[in-house]
């Protein structure tokens, strides 16, 4: 790998997370959703693995080991958002605020349960893909540590 790539690739993770956040925040009003945001983050992580090799990629960024927990949290968040209306007698996936009611906005971010669901999807996709990358590189390069 070229030197430029080795320098640039690890530094792309921050911008990638920013882009992902932007996609989610704008997602409900504009192009993009939780899935795309998750893939963007996974893409930056994958680039890191390809340029640095799996060992350095993981030792330099120990936070990656929380990917499975992130995925599980995303699934639970999505489940909770989807099914908590059942407790109040509404059908599942009733989103709040309801149509016609006022939505609190912070900049471009709309505070609705649908956006929270999208965040759950994002967490699950990002966590799952990082986990898959980890498992597959382990398969190629053998167990580490």
């Amino acid at each position, binding site marked *: 790998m070229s030197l430029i790539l080795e320098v640039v690739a690890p530094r792309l993770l921050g911008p990638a997370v920013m882009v992902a956040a932007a996609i989610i925040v704008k997602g409900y009003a504009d192009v993009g959703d939780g899935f795309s945001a998750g893939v963007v983050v*996974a893409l930056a992580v994958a680039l890191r693995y390809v340029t640095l090799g799996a060992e350095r990629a993981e030792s330099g960024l120990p936070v990656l080991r929380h990917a499975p927990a992130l995925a599980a949290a995303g*699934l639970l968040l999505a489940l909770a958002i*989807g099914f908590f209306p059942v407790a109040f007698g509404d059908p599942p996936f009733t989103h709040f605020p309801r149509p016609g009611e006022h939505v609190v906005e912070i900049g471009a971010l709309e505070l609705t349960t649908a956006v929270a669901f999208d965040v759950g999807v994002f967490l699950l996709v990002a966590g799952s893909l990082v986990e*898959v990358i980890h498992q597959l590189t382990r398969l190629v390069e053998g167990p580490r540590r």
Partner: protein
Amino acid sequence: MLAWSAVASAAAAFVACLAGWLAGGGSVELAWAPTLGLRIDLAFDGLAALYSLLATGIGALVFAYGAGYLPWHLEHVGRPAHDAWRFWPWMVVFMGSMVGLACARDLVLLFVFFDLTAVASYFLIGFDRDRDARGAALMALLVTGVSAVALLIAAVLLYDAYGTFSLPELFERAGTGTTTTVAGVLIAVAALAKSAQVPLHFWLPRAMAAPTPVSAYLHSAAMVAAGVLVLGRVHPLLVKSDLVLDGLLVVGLVSIAVGGVLALAQDELKQILAHSTISQYGYVVTLYGIGGATAAGAATLYVLAHAIAKSALFMTAGAVTVTTGESQLSRLGGLGRRLPALAVASGVAAATLAALPLTLGFFKDELFFQAAGEHGRLVQLLAVGAAALTVAYIGRFWLGLFTGPLRARPSGGVSPLLLGPIAVLGALALIGGFVVEPFARLAEDAAEVTHVGGLDVAPAYHLDAGTENAMALAAWGLGALVLLASRFREPLVRAFARAGERVGPRRWYALSLLGLNRLSDWAHDTEVRDLRNSIAAVLVPAAALIALAFVVTPTRGSYAAGSLGADDLPIVVLLALGVAAAVTAARDRGRLRPVLALSVLGFALAGVYAMAGAPDVALVAVLVETVLTLVFVGVFARLPSASVRRPRLRARNAIIGAAAGASVFAGLWGALSRRTPAEGVAAEHIERAPGAHGGDVVTVILADFRGLDTMVEITVLAVAVVGIASLLSRGRPW
């Protein structure tokens, strides 16, 4: 600790169920998926009370027995004590699903709980994880699970005809006719397989590979009872068709005979009891086949008395094996003097099964004879024969164990934990012989669900020369005769058992499983022998299907070529780029160049999406293309640089590729030639998106309109990741 919390939960559930029954029941109804007509409709009525009390009450006793048995069992087979964690949770799950099944009043809910019990039983029967136990668990799951699909089909049939899954509504709406008959037959098949009735009975004897507490619970009072529970629950639907009732009657009588004769042929204790269970549930099925008020009451009392007696007998078999180390009847005998308490307690249970007076069992046969007498002379005669068989095999079991010369020496007394539950059940059966009213009331409440309309379950001792008494006397006499005439009996029952092994349904099961395995191996070998075959396995059927669609659909006017304007220039350029990239990818012999060409193709198509007004699709396409290219680059960087042997270009590949390409081309052209419908779900989605506070309709569809679909899809993703982790690193997440 774990075992005792299971016991405590079962006991608490029993007290709750008892209080619920005495308070007169109640019901819960929740929307599940209202647009599909699915509701969570649970009612704690008489039938629910009977089966919940059995599941929790006998559950509590069997769990207490298991607390004493399981440590011995784990030590006996050389497994660590913490493997109890693989046992107790499933027992509790099983109990919970059984209570749920008892309360369900909706066909789909019934199916769900039905399968939950099957899944829990799979893990319980296969607890020992040796070859035998795993085969037994799979057999139980396949036989009961595959037949359970019939229940689902019946539910869909009835929903299609009458617009509801709810049983009370179906009882009102359903008429007599083919749909009702077919649905009745399908439900009966599912229920009969679960209750181990001929010809689907063979899974039950095999399931004796399970540890004894599992048999004592699942195969006396719970799993097999689930089948007759469903029969009792849907009975008002079944009576609308004489065919179904007659079928039940025949299956029940044949099961009584086959189970009884095979029970006489077995030597292993649990095998005798398993075949006896087949026979005993045959009685209940017979009663449901007879139909009417008397039979409904007799059926529920029968289930109650049988569950109490049979679980006590299973636990007796386990206790005998624990203390002597033997499980064959021919190597046991004379234990009565050494283990008097066990002999008395299990003696009462055996007498209950044989319907001797002064036990609860006497009344089950009294009602059975009464119902048979109402149905006709032939059934009456067969009923006496059935009862005689029961007396014979259960007499052989108990007398063989506790009388005669001492064979295997017990290594000490039976521990109180093993004896206690048996004694409690024996005492219950004995109390029932004197004070039958509470049991009769429970049976009556349950039977009222089965037989809508008034009925009266009032068993009592009648000291007269009535028909039932005469039938009972005849049955005992005949049974004693069969029991004593062992010289004539043995060759006959052995021959029957051998014939069953040779041409019976279990052999057909094995043969069909083998055939399916071979078919699957063949398909697997052909499909995944190499990459080319796997791709061809997708492309060839797709091409063939589209070609078939060509043949059967009219093509006039469905292929249009629109006009080309100056605005379309970017799209045309992108598509030309895509075509060039595709040709390069197919023709180039290098390693990295075809991959790069493929990604050029992907990006070109993403550009087309963006131009054609689908920015969301374009975004996802760009991301996925990038990931794929990165994966290829990452893998190629680690491949050895020496060139691998390149496969020759073969005519077969070219033909398959061309055929698939042509069919996709034609299919896409046809799709693009159709006018976009002005109205439809797409227009409605766009119209409603602002109301859901969204500007991007695709996102709104994903998160809101079709949120449940997204939920299921991401769950699939999570399951796939768990699968990858299990396969690649034994489930360690990192």
